[in-house]
């Protein structure tokens, strides 16, 4: 059984990871999509997409 310190550390790490994924998951998909797409869409579309996202959050 891990010690109390380790448990606290795990809880903190999970909470940070959860927050990062909560706010970062969809921006990540959009980033990956725009950089890997073929043909690559223009930057202005990327910017408008992030604006939509900001409204959603």
């Amino acid at each position, binding site marked *: 059984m891990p010690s109390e310190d380790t448990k606290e550390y795990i809880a903190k790490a999970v909470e940070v990871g*959860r927050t990062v*994924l909560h706010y970062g998951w969809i921006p990540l*998909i959009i980033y990956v999509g725009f950089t*890997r797409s*073929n*043909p690559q869409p223009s930057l202005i579309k990327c910017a408008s997409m992030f604006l*939509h996202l900001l409204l959603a959050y």
Partner: protein
Amino acid sequence: MSSSSFDAPLDNIASPPPPSHKGFFGSFFRAYDRFSQWRTDLDLPQPGNIENLQKEVKATHLNNYMFDGARADLTKSLSMNPLFQVTHSFALGSQTLPSSYNFGAVFANQKVFLQGGVDHDGNVNARMNHGWAPNSVTKAQAQFSSQPGHNMIQLEHDFQGKDYNLNAKAVNPWPADFTGIYIGGYLQSVTKNLALGCETLYQRPSPDLSEFSTSYVAKYTSTDKSWIGTAQVQPAGMVQASYWQKLSEKVEVAADLQVIVAPTRRDALATLGAKYDLRLSTFRAQLDSTGKVSALLEQRFTPAFAFMVSGEIDHFKNAAKVGVGVMIESSTLTPEEMGMVPQP
């Protein structure tokens, strides 16, 4: 869409010639080689996984497609290969669900599938599949919310052998004390038509409390794959049986029976459904033993515009639901870029 690209069966594994083993341990290896050679010679089909046991029935019945109120899905495809699209979904006027707005993004290539959605309250759902090989896929699914207690994560690995399937899942695992729900499933083709399997659920809500329960499944597929029957027995006294048949190229019918025989509760639910695939539309109709009659029509006017109408009448409760929806797809790509052949 998520699993179809990874679910391709593996028929092209060539069996290597059995190597010659010598000595004491060699006899074990020879026996094993003979056993695997015999198993390869049986040429049993890949059974699919337990989660998809009733895939055909679920695609025919309209439980998963039913909606009420009004909804609109606006999809914008930015790339076809790799697939990248974003969706704005609106739903309002439903009797059961509050009005909502959802923004979704999907990215998929040969190996990776990423999907995410965020609704107007800031709740995020995330999904990721990674195919290590065509027969070995890891899936992760999560829900993030600012309200405590609404977060969920599910990790899954699916392995398809030549004639069997192995699946392991962990729902909300907590690394500090290993609480959570763990599920392991195994499905094996026994003959060319019959597959048998079991699924074990290990629940551990707190470190000093744990519980095992195992359910058993059977699936019979006819030789020409025109009908499929499945049965599932769960330890709490739940039995589920289903039957699906393809009547013609355009018509599929399915029946499903769920029986619960527990000391505290006795219940049964039967559902009958049919699906018609017409040239530009799909029509589903369903009747169940709680007195509900429902129907759903999806009409595609052009490849980019589809219209849906759904209706449900509950004869026992004297209630009705109606739904109307549109699906609009737009693309920034030219037809050549989308891989379509221009009309001469």
